């Protein structure tokens, strides 16, 4: 087994074995191996990730297969990440971003809050794209912006990782599963809607749906900080939208304006 040392990349030195034309380092083809052996300088994965731009992969599939075979010779964790992120061609990284969020989009039922633990596992624990603090901060932002939380999260992670184009891939990944499923249901369901059996089933389901919307209200209210002092806000909103048929658009604008004017008012009284 011949080892060839590539030299320093960032803070780290990497040793490859099997000198072959697998990597294309900094341009032109150079004889190099694909999986590095002893990696004394790699104390953590972040260092490894920081040098990923210096590699370009020529045959990604072959590398992936060979890397799995060569695990014996390398530190498993580093090998895994090296193959998955560090040596991936940019096109493959976009594709990976798409796939991760496609998986999240396809397996989270109910949307919203049910998705968060799954997204965290993929993005923080498996892929190490964000650390826990960043993830919590991002979640706070995603929740306070318009649009579904899962989409906002996907767009944020995509953008943080590979810029605007990355967010296009992650966004498409999270949207596509539900788009395909609902489209199929719409095509089938519109043909069976008049079916008496389907109608009977939905007669039972409709009140259940309303109950499922109403049930989490108490818990959500608590976590949104609703107390006796501001309980009038949700009550007014609910009544004005329900009975007066006021558009939620105006309600949201009014809520933002009210919050800001309250802030201005308290700031002014504080100054005095």
């Amino acid at each position: 087994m011949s080892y060839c040392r590539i030299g320093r990349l960032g803070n780290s030195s990497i040793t490859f074995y099997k000198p072959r034309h697998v990597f294309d380092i900094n341009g032109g083809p150079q004889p190099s191996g694909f999986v590095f052996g002893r990696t004394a300088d790699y104390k953590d994965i972040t260092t490894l990730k920081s040098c990923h731009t210096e590699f370009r992969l020529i045959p990604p599939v072959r590398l992936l297969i060979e890397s799995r075979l060569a695990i014996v010779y390398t530190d498993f964790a580093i090998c895994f990440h090296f193959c998955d992120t560090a040596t991936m061609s940019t096109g493959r990284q976009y594709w990976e971003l798409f796939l991760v969020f496609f998986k999240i989009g396809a397996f989270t039922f109910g949307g919203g809050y049910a998705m968060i633990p799954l997204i965290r596992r993929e993005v923080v624990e498996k892929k190490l794209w964000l650390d826990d603090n960043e993830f919590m901060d991002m979640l706070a932002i995603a929740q306070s912006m318009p649009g579904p939380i899962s989409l906002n999260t996907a767009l944020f992670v995509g953008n943080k990782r590979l810029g605007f184009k990355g967010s296009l891939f992650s966004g498409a990944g999270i949207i596509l599963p539900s788009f395909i499923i609902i489209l199929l249901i719409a095509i089938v369901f519109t043909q069976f809607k008049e079916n008496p059996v389907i109608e009977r089933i939905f007669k039972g389901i409709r009140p259940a749906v309303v109950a499922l919307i109403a049930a989490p209200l108490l818990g959500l209210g608590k976590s949104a900080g609703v107390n006796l002092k501001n309980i009038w806000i949700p009550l007014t909103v609910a009544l004005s939208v329900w009975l007066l048929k006021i558009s939620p658009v105006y309600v949201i604008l009014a809520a933002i304006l009210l919050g800001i004017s309250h802030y201005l008012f308290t700031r002014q009284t504080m100054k005095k």
Partner: protein
Amino acid sequence: MELTDLYISLFLTFLKIGVFGFGGGYAMLPLIQQEVVDVHGWISVSDFTDIVAISQTTPGPIAFNSATYIGYTAVTEMGYAQGYGIFGSAICTLAVSLPSLVIMTIVCVFFFRLKSNPWMQASLSVLKPAIIGLIASAALMLMNGHNFIDYKSWILFGVVLVASLKKVDPILLIVLSGIAGLFLYPA
């Protein structure tokens, strides 16, 4: 209505829903319902409830699910072929996610300044309780004669409410209430 007009009005409506979709999920329901059922009349109230039911049993957020479904049905109900309906649902899904794309791109630039921004905190202090009110109004708007046809509906509602508070899986509850409907309303 001309097909292009329909596409444009679907696009604009869902763009509006995307822009004002604070709180995600259930909080977006009253806005979607008002626009789609009351203003444009693309689908009926019971159809809308069915979409919510389908959303709860399939993956993905309700906003996308209703956009995809309504985009398809609004076009096909007008008598156009399926292919036009699929294009319609693509337009709606794109429209509802476009505002998020723009906003999150901006947010990524200002991320760390936004987090501790007092203006942001100030507007959220009222917006958060207001979102709870929006979810409540979603439930109230769906409590109508179309969805609650007799006393059996209210019994089902009560049972599911209690079961849901006891953390029974919502998908299981929907399946069970569907079976219950089959027995409670004989042909």
